[in-house]
């Protein structure tokens, strides 16, 4: 298909040593190569919709704007890695409580972006939340409940 | 897409007009020109490789010269097909005016662009068109002044 490379990428704590085409996007590696389909694609790989947002070494990145080979040697966390044995993360729980999602297609990206955002801004204003969400498009909710959920999660986190 | 520009070329009008009809000068001036053949005195066909934003494409097409009033004006019409990148059709009116021993060249381009190219957004197309025109005239002027040196 094209030139390939060996990579070692850790996803949600599990290491994948794989040979992949150089041209493979990180989002395709995550979704199609290792089968974690919680990360979504909603635009033409232009970084506009944010549905593919994951964490690279803890920081939110759009996985459609990266090649998988660029993640070689790095830690990736996807939405599947957010919940732990104790259950949902406070943000996931808040999205459920506040009805912060409808079709759920954009949700993974929003959760990943906001998890990172709340780490940096533990007590954000509504305005800050709305501005931090610019890179995530949601078509169902009108954002009202999303903003409320992020606020609620922040309230839990800052208690 | 429309573009109305003028450029001063440091050469007499007759020389500029002749050079604009010289296929070798054109071949060397057109950015990304891979091939340019004359089918007749007024019809050329060729291939150029062009990059517009993220799209790189090889355009194959032809141009026709008409309404020729040497050495002051003529019209170029042409179209090119760039496969999956899209297609373009253009009409350019060129007027050459004498200006203090040099030549003032006014050109008005009207282009219809289709396919993926058209969807890149008008701003990107305009910028690229201006940039390509700039490169063309830089090459063109350089060739003319080289020619000047060999003559003198």
């Amino acid at each position, binding site marked *: 298909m094209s030139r390939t490379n060996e990579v070692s990428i850790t996803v949600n704590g599990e290491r994948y040593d794989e040979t992949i085409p150089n041209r493979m996007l990180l989002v395709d590696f995550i979704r199609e190569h290792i089968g974690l389909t*919680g990360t979504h694609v909603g*635009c033409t790989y232009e970084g506009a919709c944010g549905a593919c947002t994951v964490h690279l070494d803890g920081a939110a990145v759009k996985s459609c704007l990266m090649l998988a080979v660029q993640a070689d040697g790095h830690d990736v966390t996807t939405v599947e890695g957010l919940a732990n044995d104790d259950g949902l993360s406070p943000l996931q729980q808040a999205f459920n409580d506040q009805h912060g999602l409808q079709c*759920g297609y954009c949700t993974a990206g929003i959760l990943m972006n906001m998890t990172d955002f709340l780490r940096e801004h533990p007590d954000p204003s509504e305005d800050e939340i709305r501005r931090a969400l610019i890179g995530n498009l949601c078509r169902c909710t*009108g954002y009202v409940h999303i903003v409320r959920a992020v606020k609620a999660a922040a309230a839990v986190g800052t208690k | 897409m429309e573009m109305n520009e003028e450029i001063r070329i440091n050469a007499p009008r007759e020389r500029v007009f002749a050079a604009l009809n010289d296929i070798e000068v054109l071949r060397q001036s057109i950015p990304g020109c891979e091939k340019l053949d004359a089918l007749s005195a007024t019809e050329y066909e060729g291939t150029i490789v062009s990059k517009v934003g993220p799209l790189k494409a090889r355009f194959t097409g032809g141009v026709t010269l008409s309404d020729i009033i040497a050495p002051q004006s003529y019209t170029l019409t042409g179209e090119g097909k760039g496969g999956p990148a899209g297609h373009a059709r253009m009409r350019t009116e060129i007027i050459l005016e004498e200006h203090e021993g040099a030549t003032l060249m006014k050109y008005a381009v009207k282009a219809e662009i289709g396919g993926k190219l058209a*969807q890149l957004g008008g701003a990107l197309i305009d910028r690229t068109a201006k940039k390509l025109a700039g490169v063309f005239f830089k090459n063109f002027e350089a060739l003319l002044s080289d020619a000047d040196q060999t003559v003198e």
Partner: protein
Amino acid sequence: MASSEQVAEKPWLGARMARKEDLRLVTGKGQYIGDIVLPRMAHAVFVRSDYAHARIRSIDTAAALAVPGVIAVITGQDLVDDVRTMPQPVLLPNLPAKYPTFSALAIDKVKFHGTPVALVIARHKYIAEDASELVEVDYEELPVVTDPEAALEAGAPVINEDHDDNEIFAMTFTGGETEQEQIANAKAVDEVFANADVTIKKRFRVHRTGLTPMEPRGVLCDWSEADGLTAWITTQRPHIDRLALIDLLDIPADKVRVIAPRDQGGGFGVKAPFFRENVVIAHVARKLRRPVRWVESRHESLMNVGQERDQINDLEIAASNDGTLLAFRNHGVADNGTGETGVYWGFVMPFLGAVELPNTYTWQKADVHLRVAVTNKACITPSRAFGHFPTRFAIERAIDMVAHKLGMEPAEVRRKNLITELPYTSVTGEFYDSGDLIKLWDNLMAQVDLKEFRTEQAAAREEGRYIGIGYATGVELSGMASEVLVPMENQPGYGAATVRIDPRGAVLVFGGDAPQGQGHETSVSQVVANAFGTNPKDTVTVEGDTGTTPFGSGTIGARGASYFMSAVHNACVEIKQKICRILAHDFGVEGSYEDFEFANSEVVYLADPSLRKTFRQAVERIIMHPINMPVGEVGGLEATVYFEAPEQMVCFNADLCIVEVDINSGEFDILKWVSSEDVGNVINPLIVDGQMQGAIVQGLSNTIFEEFIYDEQGQQLTADFENYKIANAADTPNIDITYASTPCPHTPLGTRGIGEGRPASVPGALTNAICDALIPFGIEITELPLRPDTLWEKLQAARGDR
């Protein structure tokens, strides 16, 4: 454990219950079309025309076929023997129109930028994409028509060549069936206008925009000799798609199963039509005898679907000096695009838009004309506020203009003209079953102190600040009765549900529709818990699979809470009746349904509460131990019910917004947005709030940001989210949803279907607020989109005039 667990009694109906769907969706375990992978699955990419109108001279697939990994390349010619052309009867509404005949892959010519002309199938999607660029199509360009009015002129190039002209549909909506009656009506309307104190006449334009679900479309088809075709399709109506595939591919009915994936990333009407891509992928899977998947790219999606609105309405209103609305006259021209989309064909939307012109107001007379033009653009597809986004904008804007002319408060003019006696049949023949518009309106106005606002507004103007208030009302169809849906779309309107009780007490519900984010699993579980006195967590809902669900017309037109939920409830009641009969027999008492109570996961004989069984014991006895039964009874607990309402149902809404406009830049801020909703009894207010907030923001996004742009050559210039901007979180305000509901008398739970038409009130409310703010400049907005730059130009012109 299922329902044997004791739970505190909760009124589940009306509870703000967190959704059941969310657990899988927030953990990345949803299953969307792009997540379904079958062994040996091949990937398909469509080759689409980059001309808007051209003859196909030839298609050269050799280079694409030569790419290693490419399995097949097919063109329209390959479909000729195996796939019937559209339309097929199942995809035709019962409306007189000039339907185009077309092949799923274009054969002779392409009619819009993006027409599918070939399909490349490869082992990997990257290979399919690469190879698709090597398919060479030689086109001969034809004259392009992009303006609907120009398309209707004599001598315009005819796009659908099986017809004489570009008028796909035309209708006069009022004044009876015969020409004489219509002429008489037009004359009567003329008389009202001639004698009216005040009239206004304006041309209202709404651009091409619509809905763009975050998940584009997709189709995965598999074929086996034994079972035939299994098709996973992103669709709001799997049962209709199944019938279409049977007819188009000529496959026996027992050999086609359609499954809408459990999770779909939004629909909003966009996934309601039957699309040509479905049949191409199904054909290829059958031909290649292997699974083939096509997942639409955003680029393709923006070029092909989600385009709607796009109407010009020349509207005139006659009113009295006291603000009474008398009559209106409307000449609409709608841009249909090609018309090559099954079920709706484009014109069904503007048709309904014209019918809904009267909105919530009383009129003595109306004269309504509509012409729908075929153009070289993508066929318009249904989008929430189906056809009436432009007409509602026109009527709501025009009412403010009347108020301005009379020097009256727009709020007063509205209240004065609201329909007060329901049921009501509008001047265009739309039936409104019930509701209370005065209560709805007064609730809206209670959210603001208008007098105080006017004082504040005057004071602000003194400081050079311009604030304004605007309103709009709306009516939406709560699903459609068969009486309406059969003539309109040739499909039944009833809701269908199968309720099956599991021996351990869980409740399984099967529905014939296919939600895309509406939270059916949650609402169904609340309806079931309400009926059986059990816990919502004990209910499992399955929808979208034609192999297991009763026939349904799909998740469209707010059919959920009106039709589907009513069917679920009635099926539960049928089961309860059986349980009661058998328990009465077991308890040795006389008694039927009314004599038992289902609560706290128990069934209790009311006359003697010592006679009781847990719900689980009761159902296990009937399902697992069907001995010693009453005469005529057999075991098992399952019911399938079809619910048809006795009347066409509607719900009502109203919006109020307050804006501030910067007169130096044309920019505006929405300071407040509050709604009032008459939506009947609410199953889950959290879900309804979300539906309304989302719909309102969709309306704002359509009004302010989104616009599909075609150039004169029919090139679609807005095929990504950089060029087709949809509103983000920072672009949009908080939305307050308030309720003034009237229970619906025609559904068992008093519910109404909600949310489909909801965006339609938005452009009127917003533009009315902006015009109210700018009254000193006399600015009247009549065109969308509403952008700061166009507003700035109007302001410059108006200030120059002063």
